[in-house]
């Protein structure tokens, strides 16, 4: 028998309590969540009526912790104030984000969705443009997508830029395979590059600088107030890039004759 009522709104998985949250309800919460994909938030609506039973607190904490590891956020809606205070006393308030109204996080979703197109397009255009002009390298952008756990792509060198500003906080990285990066550098420098060495690493940073500079000019005209940022280069075999953010990370894929490469934007808006 269902102990919870499940709904999906935007990227929010919403569970409504129909009784106190006991071990059975937490187990149902976990298994029903497991069945879903393409969500970033899980909300448990306690309807100002129900309690979390003492025996269920640990399991509910583990559930919230597991979500956080997957870059998803757990919220308690309409939870009893005494429960919120108790969680705060235990130092668990960040695991149980108490909200009084769903609109608090729905606004967040709406705001981010509005920003997506405006924010991503300048990076796509700047990437294609920069590689064409500076590296004589043709590429076509693919469809932006939200990065999920299963995303996997070989990366041998990546340039990462962290940004904090009024309109955007997050990080942007551009990720290349060795083959593509060496071709870009060979074309850019007019000399054959056969291996990625320390002297060439700043090439990835410079490309990201140029792309970021172009996108920044466009975005600031849209009111984002992006400021200057300095890129960091990461190099190694089969790198995995991870943006530490509770929000979605976007993948901007690009195709070329030498294969694909991509850009990641981890945004917190």
């Amino acid at each position, binding site marked *: 028998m269902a102990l919870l009522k499940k709904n999906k709104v935007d990227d929010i998985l919403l569970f409504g309590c129909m009784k106190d949250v006991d071990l059975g309800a937490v187990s149902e919460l976990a298994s029903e969540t497991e069945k879903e994909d393409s969500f970033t938030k899980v909300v448990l609506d306690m309807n100002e009526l129900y309690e979390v039973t003492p025996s269920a607190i640990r399991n509910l904490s583990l559930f919230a912790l597991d979500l956080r590891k997957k870059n998803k956020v757990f919220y308690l809606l309409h939870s009893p104030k005494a429960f919120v205070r108790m969680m705060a006393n235990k130092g668990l308030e960040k695991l149980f984000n108490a909200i009084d109204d769903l609109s608090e996080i729905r606004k967040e979703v709406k705001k981010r969705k509005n920003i997506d197109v405006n924010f991503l397009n300048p990076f796509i255009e700047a990437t294609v443009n920069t590689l064409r002009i500076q590296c004589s390298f043709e590429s076509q952008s693919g469809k932006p997508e939200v990065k999920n756990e299963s995303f996997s792509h070989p990366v041998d060198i990546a340039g990462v830029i962290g940004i904090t500003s009024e309109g955007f906080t997050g990080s942007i990285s551009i990720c290349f395979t060795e083959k593509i990066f060496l071709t870009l550098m060979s074309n850019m420098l007019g000399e054959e590059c056969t291996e990625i060495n320390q002297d060439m690493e700043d090439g990835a940073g410079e490309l990201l600088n140029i792309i970021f500079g172009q996108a920044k*000019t466009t975005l*600031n005209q849209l009111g984002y107030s992006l400021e200057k940022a300095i890129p960091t280069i990461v190099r190694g075999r089969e790198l995995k890039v991870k943006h530490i953010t509770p929000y979605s990370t976007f993948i901007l894929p690009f195709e070329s004759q030498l294969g694909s490469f991509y850009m990641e934007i981890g945004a917190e808006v």
Partner: protein
Amino acid sequence: MFKNDINILVVDDMLTMRKVVSKILRDLGYMNITQATDGNDAWEKAKEGTFGLIISDWNMPNCTGVEFLKRVRAEAKTAKTPFLLVTAEAEQHQIVEAVQAGVDQYVVKPFTTAGLQEKLAMVYKKYNKAV
């Protein structure tokens, strides 16, 4: 256009861009190229006034391109050196700042050989008219 034997100083903290700009200049026939890694390094090399053209990046640690430009313009030996700034950003307030500091032209990255050549021609024309 500038004579091919002119001494040119290329300033950028990124080795890649120093190589890119130097390669384009060589492709255009300029062979006397000196490189500097930031505004301080560039000033040490430029202060005697031996360069006929300076091409400098804007964003550099220690001493930015605009700070370097202000030093060049403030010193009698270098004040009239043609100066071209290279930048990845072209926002209005930055352009105004560069013009106020005395820049002759600026190039926005990414740029082609033809793009840089066009800017060099504009700088040359400006100084040629002045003479």
